[in-house]
Structures are given as C-alpha cells and as structure tokens.
C-alpha cells in the first residue's frame, strides 16, 4: 500500500509499533510455553527412565528376596493350536486327559467340563459312555427322598475330588487347589511393553499353557542361597504369586503310561496336560479360528470392492 499523503504517516508508524509489540508479546508467550513444555518433557522422560533403573537395582541387590513374580518368565513353547490356523492335536489331548485323570484329578476339580464334550478329543460315543461310567456320581433325591450313587453318564461333568472347597482346603494345607476348567485362560504373566504390542501381530495367546508347562517343569530348580521358603511350600521360580506354592512337584518320569510311544517324561506330560487344559478352557478354539479366517477373507474382498466403488463414485469430485 502506498501512503497517500504525509498526514497519514504518523498513524502508520503507530500501527507498525503496535504490531511489533504484539509480535514481541507473542514471541515471548511462545517462548515461555515452549520452555515450560521442554522442561515438562524432560521431567517426564527422566521419571520414565527412573523406575526401570530402580527395579534393576532392586533385583540386583537381593536375588534371595525377589519382589516381582514370577521370578522367571514362562518359556514360550510351540503349540499346535497357536496361530491363525491352529488346531488341537487330538492324540496330545488324549494323553493330556490321561495325565489329568491319573495325576491332577486327585486334587483338582474340572467341574465345567462334561464327558460328552470329550468327543472333541476323538473318542467315540461308546468310549465316552465307558469313560463316564468309571466315575461315581452322587445324584438325587430319588422318589423316596434319598440321595444315591450311580455310574456317570456322558451328560455328567467331571466330579470334584472333594465335597466342597473347605474340605479341599483342609486336605491341602489350607489352600483349595483351583478348579482346572479355565486354568489355561485364568493364568497369564504380564507381557509388558513393547511385547504386548508385538503379540497383536504374532497372535500370541498361549500365555496360559506356557505358564502351566513352565510351572510343572520348574520344580527342579534350586532356590538361591539365603532365600526363605515358607514351611509346607515348594520353591518354583515360575510361580506367578510368590517364591513357592503349596502344590508339591506332581509329576515324575514314567509316572503315567502312554500307549502311543510318546516319551514318558515330565516335560512331555507337562506339554500334554497344558494342551489338554487349553482345550478344556477354550473348547471351541478350532471353530473360532476357522470361522475367523472366513470372516476376514470376506471382509477383505468386500472391503476391496467397496473401496473400488468408492473410488469410482468420487472420481469426478475433487476432495
């Protein structure tokens, strides 16, 4: 803009000074904000670094008094049911059932699992009837008003080894052994950042069976010198809630006889029973993954078609 006459000149100067002052005040405001922001950022970054250091220190100073459990993270195993196309290995589930029946069932109930569902493991109807009949079920009252015992039928669930939780606790040193129906989903060691982000892409959902397997094979390890193990408990560095647990080492080599030639080792037993417990907790896993694949393929194809349609619709419109 060209100044038209001399008398407008002072006004212009005034105008310019105001803008300059405004600019200065703005610059000052920005600078203050920026500085305080940078400080805040530094403080946050500093505090973010601090806890990791503190934890590392804690761990270093007393191996005998750990504060975070489990002491060792569960070992990640290969499971047939992992990944988008995972399926249960029926032979493994049958072996796992055998381990459950012969070892775990002495103390652990599995009350949500019905005999009829063992069809998933590859058993015929006859085999399931025979298996159910091995159990005695307390039923009733009958027409006379009495409770009575009868052999199990496929619609029955696995009977509990103890009449109630109090009896279970009394027989096991004060802590009732947990029901096993959902154990493989009810145990999971926190993965922490950034692993839980990677888990989304690797579809890691085997924290439960990994934990159970590690726990069952973890009894061999010796506690570090100076660690106090409470009486009546057993050291296990994989236990999620302390240095030791009430359950003694339940498995030993050759304890359960396998008829399919699989190795009769603690490691194999642990794998098999962990896989079996995953099935018990998530019996529809195969159907879920199979349906999921179809759904995703459908959404992908339909999405692609809709995207092409969208491009065509918007082709003539700048946006």
């Amino acid at each position, binding site marked *: 803009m060209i100044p038209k006459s001399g008398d407008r000149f002072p006004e212009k100067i005034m105008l310019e000074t105001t803008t300059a002052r405004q600019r200065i*005040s*703005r610059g000052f*405001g*920005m600078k203050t*904000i920026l500085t305080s*922001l940078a400080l*805040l950022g530094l*403080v*946050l970054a500093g*505090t*973010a670094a*601090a*806890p990791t250091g*503190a934890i590392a220190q804690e761990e270093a100073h007393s191996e005998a008094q750990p504060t975070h459990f489990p002491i060792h993270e569960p070992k990640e195993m290969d499971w047939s049911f992992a990944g*988008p196309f995972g399926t249960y290995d029926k032979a493994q589930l049958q072996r796992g059932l055998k381990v459950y029946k012969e070892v775990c069932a002495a103390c652990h109930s599995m009350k*949500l699992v019905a005999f009829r*569902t063992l069809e998933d493991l590859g058993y015929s109807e006859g085999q399931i009837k025979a298996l159910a009949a091995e159990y005695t079920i307390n039923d009733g009252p009958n027409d006379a008003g009495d409770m009575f015992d009868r052999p199990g039928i496929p619609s029955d669930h696995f009977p509990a080894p103890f009449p109630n939780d109090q009896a279970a606790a009394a027989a096991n040193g004060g802590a009732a052994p*947990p029901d096993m*129906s*959902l154990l493989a*989903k*009810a*145990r*999971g060691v926190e993965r922490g*950042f950034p692993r839980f982000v990677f*888990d*989304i892409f690797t*579809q890691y*959902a085997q*924290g*439960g069976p990994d934990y159970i397997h590690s726990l069952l094979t973890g009894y061999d390890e010796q506690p570090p010198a100076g660690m106090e193990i409470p009486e009546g408990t057993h050291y296990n560095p994989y236990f999620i*809630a302390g240095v030791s647990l009430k359950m003694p080492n339940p498995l030993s080599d050759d304890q359960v006889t396998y008829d399919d030639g699989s190795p009769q080792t603690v490691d194999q037993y642990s794998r098999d029973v962990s896989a079996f417990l995953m099935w018990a*907790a998530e*019996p*529809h896993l195969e*159907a*879920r*993954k199979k*349906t*999921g*694949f179809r*759904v*995703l393929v459908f*959404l*992908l194809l*339909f*999405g692609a078609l*809709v*995207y092409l*349609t*969208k491009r065509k*619709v*918007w082709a003539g*419109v*700048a*946006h």
Partner: protein
Amino acid sequence: MSEGHSTYTPKTGIGRWFDARMPLPRLVYDSFVAYPVPRNLNYAWTFGGILAIMLTAQMLTGIVLAMHYAADSTLAFDSVEKIMRDVNSGWLLRYMHSNGASFFFVAVYIHIFRGLYYGSYKAPRELLWILGCIIYLLMMATGFMGYVLPWGQMSFWGATVITGFFSAIPLVGDWIQQLLLGGFAVDNPTLNRFFSLHYLLPFMIAGVVVLHIWALHVVGQSNPTGIEVKSKTDTVAFTPYATIKDAFGMLVFLFIFAYFVFYLPNFLGHPDNYVVADPLKTPAHIVPEWYFLPFYAILRAITFNIGPINSKLGGVLAMFGSIAMLFLVPWLDTSKVRSAVYRPWYKLFFWLFVIDAVLLGWLGSQPAEGSYVFMAQMATLFYFAFFLVVLPVLGLIETPRRLPNSITEAVLEKNKGSGGGHPARATAAPETKG
C-alpha cells in the same frame, strides 16, 4: 441446514399417502440421501457411522446374551461359561460383546480426538459436543457395569474399588455407595442392579444418539478446514458420496475388530476374570478395563491432601474433573479458528495431549508405587494444563495460518499443489510428527 429445503418427491401413490400423514420416508431421504455433507471430509469423519454400528452390534449381541445369562452371584460365572461352551455360537456372541465394548471405546476415542483436533465443538456445535460427552459418560457407566456381570475376580474387585470412590464424597458419600451396592459390600444385590442398569443404559445412549444426530443435522458437519459450508459447491450429497466412504471405513474397522474377536479374544481382558469372584481373596493388582486406565491413573495420582480435601476425595474430584473438562471445552478454547490444520501451536499441543493420554493409560496399568506416582502426577498436571491453560491462552496469543476462503478453494488448492505448494505446511510438519 436440512430445514426448509426438502427435495423429496414421493414417486408412488403409497409414498404420497404416507408423506401426507407421517413423512418418515421424507425424513430418511433428507437425512441420509439428500443431506449435504462437506466434500472434504476425511476418514476421521467415518467414526460416527462406525459408532452407530458398534452400538447396534452391542445391543443385538447383548439382548441374546441376556437370554442365557443369570444375574445371580451364585450362577453368573457358570452361566457365562455355559454360553461359552453350550449355547450355539455362544462363544462368538460373548467374544463379540466383550471385544465390541473395547472397540466401541476405540471408536469413541478416535471420534473425540477428531473433534478436538478439528475444533468441531466450536459454535454453533457446542450442544452437539455436549450431547456427545453425555453419550461418552453413559458408555463408561455401561461398560463398567457390563464388566461386573461375568462375576470374575476383576469384576468383583473392580466394582469394589470403583464404588468405593463414592464413599469419598462428604456427607452423602456413604449413602450413595450403599444405594449403588444395595448393601455394604459388592454382593448379589449389586449384581442384580448392575444387570438391570446395564440393560437400560444402552437404550438411553440410543436416545441421546438421536439427539446428537438431530443436533448434527441442524448445524451440519464440520470439516477438516473448519470453515463453514458457504455454497453448494462446498458439499456433496450424503448418498452416494458419504455412504460409500463410511461403508469402506466401517469395513476396515470391522476387519480389525474381527481380527481380535477371532484370534485374540482375550487380549484386551484380564486373566483374573476367568477366576470366579472371591470376596476373601484380593488380586495382586486390581486394574480396570483398558479404556478407563487414564482416569484410573489420575485418580491415583492425587496422593496428597489439599487443605480440607483429603487425598481420597482429591483423587475422585480429579478423576471426575478430568471428564468434566470435556464438557467445558467449547468455552475453554478461545481461538476463532476451528481446525488445528491452521493452528501450528495447537497442533503441537494436541499431539502432546494424545501422548499424555496414552502415557496416563500406561501408568494406570502399573502399580501405584515409586516413581510411577510422580510420573502420573506430572501427566495429570499436563492433562489439566491442556484444558485450563493451553486451550484458553493459545487462542489469544497464537497466530493462525492463512485460512482459505471456502472449502471449495481449500480443496482445489490442495489438488493443484499436491506435493509441495505449501511452504507454511512444510515448516509446520516436523513439529507434528509425533
């Protein structure tokens, strides 16, 4: 905007008969076919439709789940397991519902952040924004009560902790808490009333959604430039333009949702909720669902007394205050410019706020001990500073970038210079990469 210029002309006799008596087809036509939408909406604007889909999906799966669920503390856990094992496709319904809640919140957070970024709450859309905040509050109540229903360990202890907040309120706190619980502790009466309310609230949400959409259709949608629609060339018809774009956005969202439902159904849950509720056994760490974690972190950040306010009440006030901030946003933000696209400093602070919210979420999942507490306090400070200091002050001192005269001009400018015609944007970009 939609008032007064309906272009609907019924083609059939039945159509005319209806139109003269109850013009529902006209309403649908005007709202979802002829309704003018800004031509420059990006995919962030598809989340309204996505949320509508999620609400519908939650209600449908929820209604069927309620047919099989037993709201009784001795039966609830096993009835959920019966759904998972014995009900036809029960596992699918239940996983869709539990993950659906999470994805409902994913969508609503993106929706809210979109509103914050583009200044969608500014006049004349204050009421639209507040209705959205009410929906969000109702969603939180619904989500919280829904999480209690499976009656697992986290259900029980989460309910114990959260209802415990109310006892911090002076004078009436204990009374409110007992009213919520139906007793002195979480028990069967709590479960019964939570189930009843969990069934009721979604219908209330649907009611507020109707108001939300009504308000939207009166004021019209905002858009990435934040400039009001000025002429016909600024808009396109809802159908087919917005319909097809929304449909694509929904399918992408559903793809990610399905990935979690089918492959990682328990990823967003907590293992402890597969253990039946036990009032005598407290879990090592009680954590709420992930979508409450930032607020949980704010609650626990107040570890000190402020005058007559003890730390417990202070925490509760800070937590409710952090949500109340959202309601005040239309009046806290003093800037005349809506969109962060033209506000370089606001853009920077917006992304810092996003980082802060995520950081608070992470802190909420960590035990409240050691330096986590201090970090949570700093992050809480920034959270409130964003609303109470940054929003009002920035609007007064920030120099916005030049605004285009109209949406059409902005669109044409963008299409012409795709690549490098924007020196101002180029300089602003490095700061926003965060």
